[in-house]
Every structure is written in structure tokens, then in C-alpha cells.
């Protein structure tokens, strides 16, 4: 359905800095009041004033941990969680079997060593989850801090885990925090994500990624160079090396071509002005560019296709595809032809391709190759059925007619005669074949 008020719609999508001022319209206040009642009737949707006055909760504050009432409550809750199902209630399920309850190695008994919190770690975490007032300052010993962290992890609430980690970050030295985080994978991942978000990345090997923030190409190149010493896997190290080499060369090619283009020395730039700079383009785009503007250069120059092919270990198949695309775009059919032509030792020429000729046809067709060019490659398709269907798709009449002639398929020739224009050259050709052949 179409949205009711197109002007509002328009507004949502176009409001940039233009402010919008409304004029008065009538309201639906009664409905509002009614639904407001509904909202308020559902608890916890609208967060009421803080529940500090709640009797049950207040009994916690000031009560020394380890007191009788505390331990009674503690026991009661442990009974509940071991599966005694209350009416209408749902059982607790073990949510993190991989995570031992006290992975810190500190038992609950460490709580009884005389520290007096207003709230236990469990209570604190619960209060944090519920958005109530809490206090972390009293978790001062390393043990207490870790107990708190583990409790947050056990509650599965990422928001609280991160809140505790922020407190630990402020109140523990890096070395201490990291040492403890190593054995706490869930907490560690929250911490890494948090650091990432606040962009405090100096600690992390996000350095390689940082190159994206550098605009100046020379600075970016130098930065990439500095990344070469980082402990990448051998494979990744090769890729980073390539990245550096690529940008280094792109800078050289760009400077040169810019100058050549503006001086108007080379026809190719006049005929096909560059649409964008080659800086920061992928390797294959760079190769395409090189096949487009620098075809035939000796492999000694950085900008030559041969040099790029060799430097970046480009496969035959990839090289051919890219070269083909570039030369076909320029309608350099002679170059296209040369790509496939091989001579054997007797000097005969033959057309070969590392990819099926039906693909070549497809690429040529997408580059608007004329029928004369297309049909040469359609002819090279091995599978007769595929050949005919391609020929029909691209209207290569000669290929179709010759194939039917070779197959001596008179019936198909007659059918095809009906499809071509009466009196055209292909029509006459079919007529000729039909009349020459013996019935």
C-alpha cells in the first residue's frame, strides 16, 4: 500500500539541515490518555522512580555479607536454581557449560573474608541489569574485582560485562587486567570490542586497518611499509607486501600519466580521458588500466601489463580475462585475436584459450563486438548444441547455416530460412545450399 501522507514521507527522507516547522493540526488526545493507561499497566515498560524504598531491597543495604539473613537468602536462591520448579515458572537451564562458575579459582568462601560490601557481586550485577543504583568502588581487591567480573559473565549481559570492564580498566594496571582476561574469553572479547568502539586501538594490531584513515598517498604508502614488520602469517605477509608494492607503483604510474595526459602527448589519453585516478585501486583494476593505456610497453616499465602480471603473480586465466576486457573495450580486435593465437613448431597458427570460448563470446558481446568478430569465436565453441544456441542468441547467421549444412540437416535449414529476412544475403545463402544439395 502506498503510504498515506507523501509530504511526511518526503520530509523524513530529505531532512538534512533544513529544519521543519509544523503548523497546528487537531489532536487525538483521548486516545492518547487511554493508551497511556495501558502503558502504565504493563510493568517494567515504563521505568518508574527508583525503587530504593522497596522494603525487600533495603534490607540488603548495610547488611554485612555473610550475616545470617544473607546466607539464608543465598541458600534459598541456590535451591531455586537447582531445579525446584515453582508453579507456572520455567526451569533454569545451564547456559554456558564451557564456563565454570568460578573460573577465577576463587570460591564463594572468599567472600567471607571480612570484606563488607553493601551488595554482593550477584546483587550488584542484578541491580545493574535492572538499572538500579549500584556501587563498584567497594570492589577493591583483585579477588573481589574478578568475582564481580565472573558474576557479570555468568549473567550473560554484555552491557553489564562491559560496565565492569570499564571499572576494571580504570582501577587495574594493564598488565594485571590482561593477565586475568586471557583466561576469560568472553570478557576478553567484550573488552576488545569496547576498545575498538572507543577507538583506543594503539594497543591492538589494528594498525594495518589504520591505513584506511590516511588520505595522503605517500603517507599511506610509508605507513604500509611500516606494517611489513608486523607478525602476520606468511600468506598474509605476502598480501601486505603486495599492498605496499602496489601503492608504490600506482603513485609512480599516476604521477607519470597525469603529466602525460595534461601535456596532451599521447593520443590514448585524448581519446579516452581518465575517469579516475588509479591510486588505491585493486590489482586487477590496475592491470586493466595498464592493458588499456599502456599496452605493448616493454616489461621493464612499472606500468606495463607484463610487469604487473609478473610482480603480482597473476594467473594466465586472470591475465587473459582482464586483457581481453580492456582490448575489447577499445575495439582493438587485432589485439584480441593475438591473445588467442598460438603457433606450433611447424608454424601453423591455432586459437587456444584457458577458458571456454563460450565465455570469451560472452565477454566480447558485452563489449559490443561486431558480428564478424563474434562469429569467429562462436565457431570455436566445441559443443555443437552450445555453438548453435550462442549463434542464435547473437544472430551469427553464417555459423548457424554452416553448422546445419555440415550436419546435413535440411529440415533445420528450411526452418531457419523462415526466420531470416527474405532476400537478405543469409536467405540467399540458404537457398543456394538447399538447391545444391541432393535430396
Amino acid at each position, binding site marked *: 500500500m502506498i503510504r498515506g501522507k507523501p509530504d511526511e514521507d518526503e520530509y523524513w527522507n530529505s531532512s538534512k539541515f533544513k529544519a521543519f516547522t509544523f503548523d497546528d493540526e487537531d489532536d487525538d488526545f483521548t486516545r492518547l490518555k487511554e493508551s497511556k493507561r495501558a502503558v502504565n499497566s504493563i510493568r517494567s515498560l515504563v521505568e518508574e522512580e527508583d525503587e530504593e524504598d522497596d522494603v525487600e531491597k533495603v534490607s540488603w543495604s548495610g547488611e554485612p555479607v555473610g550475616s545470617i539473613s544473607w546466607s539464608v537468602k543465598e541458600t534459598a536462591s541456590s535451591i531455586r536454581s537447582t531445579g525446584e520448579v515453582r508453579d507456572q515458572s*520455567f526451569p533454569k*537451564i545451564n547456559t554456558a557449560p564451557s564456563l565454570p562458575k568460578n573460573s577465577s579459582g576463587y570460591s564463594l568462601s572468599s567472600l567471607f573474608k571480612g570484606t563488607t560490601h553493601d551488595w554482593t557481586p550477584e546483587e550488584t550485577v542484578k541491580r545493574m541489569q535492572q538499572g538500579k543504583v549500584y556501587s563498584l568502588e567497594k570492589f577493591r581487591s583483585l579477588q573481589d574485582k574478578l568475582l564481580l567480573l565472573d558474576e557479570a559473565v555468568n549473567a550473560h549481559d554484555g552491557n553489564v560485562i562491559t560496565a565492569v570492564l570499564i571499572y576494571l580498566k580504570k582501577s587495574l594496571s594493564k598488565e594485571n587486567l590482561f593477565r586475568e582476561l586471557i583466561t576469560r574469553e568472553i570478557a576478553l572479547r567484550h573488552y576488545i570490542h569496547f576498545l575498538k568502539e572507543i577507538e583506543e586501538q594503539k594497543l591492538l*594490531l589494528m594498525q594495518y586497518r589504520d591505513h584506511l584513515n590516511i588520505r595522503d598517498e605517500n603517507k599511506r604508502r610509508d605507513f604500509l611499509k611500516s606494517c611489513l614488520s608486523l607478525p602476520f602469517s606468511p600468506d*598474509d605477509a605476502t598480501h601486505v607486501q603486495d599492498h605496499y608494492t602496489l601503492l608504490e607503483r600506482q603513485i609512480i604510474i599516476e604521477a607519470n600519466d597525469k603529466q602525460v595526459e595534461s601535456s596532451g602527448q599521447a593520443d590514448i589519453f585524448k581519446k579516452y580521458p581518465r575517469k579516475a585516478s588509479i591510486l588505491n585501486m585493486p590489482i586487477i583494476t590496475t592491470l586493466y588500466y595498464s592493458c588499456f593505456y599502456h599496452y605493448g610497453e616493454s616489461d621493464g616499465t612499472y606500468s606495463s601489463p607484463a610487469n604487473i602480471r609478473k610482480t603480482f*603473480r597473476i594467473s594466465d*586465466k586472470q591475465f587473459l580475462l582482464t586483457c581481453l*576486457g580492456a582490448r575489447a573495450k577499445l575495439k582493438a580486435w587485432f589485439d584480441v585475436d593475438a591473445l588467442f593465437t598460438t603457433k606450433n613448431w611447424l608454424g601453423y597458427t591455432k586459437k587456444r584459450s584457458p577458458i571456454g570460448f563460450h565465455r570469451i563470446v560472452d565477454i566480447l558481446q558485452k563489449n559490443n563486438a561486431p558480428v564478424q568478430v563474434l562469429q569467429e569465436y562462436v565457431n570455436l565453441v566445441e559443443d555443437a548444441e552450445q555453438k548453435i544456441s550462442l549463434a542464435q542468441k547473437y544472430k551469427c547467421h553464417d555459423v548457424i547455416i554452416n553448422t546445419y549444412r555440415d550436419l546435413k540437416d535440411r529440415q533445420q535449414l528450411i526452418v531457419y530460412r523462415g526466420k531470416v529476412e527474405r532476400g537478405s544475403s543469409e536467405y540467399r545463402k540458404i537457398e543456394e545450399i538447399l538447391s545444391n544439395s541432393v535430396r
Partner: protein
Amino acid sequence: MAHSVRRDAPELPDFSLLKRLARDQLIYLLEQLPGRKDLFIEADLMSPLDRIANVTTLKQHDVDKLYKVEYKPIVSTSDQLCFLIRPRIKTVKWICDVVNADKAFGRFRRYKIIFSPQKFYSCENLLEEQGIFGDVTTDEWSFYLLPLDDDIISLELPEFFRDNFLEGDQRWVRTAGSALHLLHSVYGPFSKLYGIGRCSKMAYESWREQVEEGEQRARQAEIGNVFLIDRDVDLVTPLCSQVVYEGLVDDIFRIKCGCVEFGPDVTSSDKSIKVMLNSQDKVFNEIRNEHFSQVFGFLSQKARNLQTAYDKRSGMDIKQMKTFVSEELKGLKQEHRLLSLHIGASESMMKRKTKQDFQELLKTEHSLLEGFEIRECISYIEEHINRQVSMVESMRLLCLLSLTENGLLPKDYRSLKAQFLQSYGIDHLLTFSNLKQLGLLVEQQPGETLTVMESRVGKLVNDKTAGKLTDAFSSLAKKSNFRALGRRLNLVPKSDEEYDLRVPRDMAYIFSGAYIPLSCKLIEQVLERDGWTGLEEVTRMLNGHEFAVTAGSNGSDARVKTDSQRIILVMFLGGCTFSEISALRFLGREKGLKFIVVTTAITNSARLLESMLDNHA
């Protein structure tokens, strides 16, 4: 298919109440900052907000001007600024800049941040660090659930997938629990919950705790059963090309918050038009779940009927004509407009798909699902990469290959990765690291070397411990076991049988009969067995974390076959696709059930993979 609805299928609950609740709470919050104020809205909250309120509503509550959050200095002259945002560090940072700029300028204003659906401590901590805690008041707008249609409810949290499954950040677990709790309080009490996945388990726990904290109100349940499922239980399904109408429209035009923008190629005029796609659109409602190949026939039949209806006019006398105009014409015109729109969309999709050799692409996908001619598939993918065709499509195929084959051979992995980086940019090293960490694209043998991600962490700690971490991370990148699961659950029908798409026999129709989505098959099996009994091998291959729980014995109506027992709420944690929704609708029709899909966001292959990208500044 719309005709084959079983008569006894129960009615769906009315979810418009959720919209009203959200709107009224927003009004309540706006009233907490009395007087005229300018409102800054986060870009991705605008569409959801649009679905529940309009400019008039906001205006009635003293909102003067509206702005989109754009991370630039502001030009407002108002004395009160209100920010309606997601709890994100980046946005809060920007607000800090705004406030501190005002301070430096000696300008006094009142500020309020409304976080939706909840606030995070890390955001408040930032306010504190920036010295503006207190200058800025904060609130929460518990807008957890946006009904997109009669049977689709979205949390509109696309970042859930990346945050939870890639970063390992559980910040949204409680959000999911709260959303479920809201549904439970309004449409429950639920009597049975099934689930699979680590996040599902945690969300269940969070929900259970919230139920225990709150008070129980006795009421007649509208929704009886719930199924929770983690997106990473089934990553294959969202990576498949969608061929059911609604999914295809989403893949091609991207449906945003239930609304799609059709360009000039669809409207055959010079302007684009925005269309709501839901059950209110009678034409769309009849084709949304159909395989695309069936849509043309349906639309042309519909067009002929319409013609006949119009033709009735000839031969009418004045009185009949009057009745016709007042009673029928409007409906016909409406239908006419919708029909031409969907015909236009179908044509446009057809054209695009022909251009990209869709048939061949689908063939490759089906071969991967079937485990047939894998070498040919690899060559196809390789050429796709070599020709620099769509980067996301190449990545999608690579991930499908990895997921279905339990990882790539090291030789293939290295070669395809190298070619990918050559074609699309070496920055994608970061993408590969993310895909590996999530288990979307992995090598068959766990390498001993440090990848980018692991060495990142390695630097964080020290070299000695880096090894431990590598182990930890590689254990996260779990095996997908797709082939074995496929055999066990009959996910891939035998390809030699003819599949009649006009009369689908199972959920495989959504993928042209080639594959039954794993996610939906699990739901079907568990409902049929009323639990996981007999599926032990399957759950083991899915890394466990399955559960099935029933309300305590006093929840007596659990055994009574009420309508609510045949309404099943399926919650996808990490997103679900329109194809999966179509499959569940099919299943519902077959079994006389009604499914309600709750999802953290509507996803598809492109959205899922784009969330893995890191190669932008």
C-alpha cells in the same frame, strides 16, 4: 497457495497494541522535557518511528524542529535539544561534541538523550568522561518490537548479528530477553519454549529471570509456544539466492522496514515510488510466498480478471453505472495500480537476473547444496572473482562453498583468497579474518599461523599467550557439518525427481525444490516430536545448546489443545530471511498452525555479508 488455508488455523493476535505502547511511551518521555525542543533522530530509527507515530504526534508534544543525526555541528537555535538514538558510542561521542561546543561558546541549553531500546553503561561512561554527565539527562524508550506485518515482528537491530556472533559481545542478550518478556506479558503466558543456540539459551535465561522478577497476571494466553534459534545454527539458508517473490524483491530492491522504493524502471515513469509491502496489499499478499516462476502467470490472470471487471461497464444503464462507480470502481482502480506496480517489479527483476546469468548462478548454488561437481563450482567462483563481478556475490559463493564442504582445502583457500584480494582490494584481508572467525569461510585444517585478527589480540597481550588465544578462536570457528545434516534431515531432495513448483510438496519449493532450509526443518521436527528426542545426532552436529522447557505443573492449560497451542512464535536471534518466513507460512498451512516470526532484523545474503566488511575508514 493462499486458497489452501486450513479452516482450523487459529487467528493471529493483534500486534498493533505494541505500536500503541511504543508511541505512548515516547510521548511520555517527550513530556519529561517540557517546553519546545528540537529533536535529533538517529537515521536508522527514522523508519521504525515512522511506522508508529507521525510528525503531528511529535509536534503535539512540543517538538519544534526535527533533524537527522549526521555527526556534524548543529545549527539549532532551540534552548532544549532532545536526541533519540541507538545506544552507540559513535553517536554519544557526537552529542558530547555538540554539548562541549555549546559550553565553549557559553551557550546554555538543556539536553536529553533517549536511548532506544535501552541504554548501555559504556554510553553513560562516555558522558561522564566527557564531563557532561548531569548536563545531559538520559532515558530509555523501550521500543523493542516493531510489527512489520500480521505475522512479522522486528527488533530492527541489524547489528545484533555482528555484535553477537563476530565480536562475541553479548550486549543484546538482555534486549532479546526483554523483547520476549514484553510479548509474554501481553500475549502470554507461554507454556512451552524450545530453542537451539548459545544466544537463544542466554536469551531464555534472561527472559525467565525477568518473568520471575515481575508479577504474574492471570490471563488467557494468545501465544502458547515459542521457538528460539540462533542465526549461526544455520548460516547456509540466508546465503542462498532468494527466488520466492518477497525474498527476491528484498534481494534486488532491499525492503526497508516493510517498505520498498521502486525506481523508474519499475514505475515506468520518471520518478521513484515508495510502497508498503504487507498483507494489506491484496495483490502482493497473494504472490509474496510464490516461487518467482509462478508469479507471471498469476499476475496475467489477475490482469485479465480486472479487464473483465472493467468491461462490465459497457451496456450498463445510468443507475447501474452509478452503483458501479460508487461501489466497485475505487477497488478496481486500487487493484489496477497495485497490479501494474508488481508487474513492473517482476519485469525489472527478470531483466536484471537475465543480465547476470542467474540460471548459471543458481545451478552452481544447487550443485554446492547437493555436493555435486564441486570442482566445476570452484572454477565458476574463480571466474566470477576474476571478472570482478559483484564482490558480495563472490564472497557469498565462497562462503556457501566453505559451509557446505566443511571448509576449503588449504590449496583452494589460499588461491581463491589471493585472487579475491587481487580483484577486490587487499583491504579485504580484514574481511577474510572476520569470515574465518565467524566460521563462514575457513580452511579445512586449522592453520597454526596467526591471522590478522589473532595477531591483533596477540599484540594486546603478549606472544606467549597468543597461542592460547589462537586455540580459543579456532575452536569458535566450528564445523558446519552441512552434508551430514543434509542427509540426516533430508534437506536436499533427490535431484532426478521433477519438482512441481505450482503445487509445492514441501518447504524446498522456496529454493526451487533444491533445498529445505535447515532452520525451518529443525522447527518442523521439534514441533512434531514435541522436543529434541530422536534428534540427538543432529544437535550434536549443531554444537548442542538445544533445550525444551515446559511451564511448571500448575500451568494446566499446557495440555489443553487451545488455539494458543497452535500459535508458535519463532524468534530468530541474528536475523531471518523472507524465504524462511515463506517456508514457515507454508508449514503452518500444512499443519494447521500459525507462525509468528520475531527477528532481530530481516536479513539476506548481502546484508549479512556487508556486516562482515571492515575495509572502510
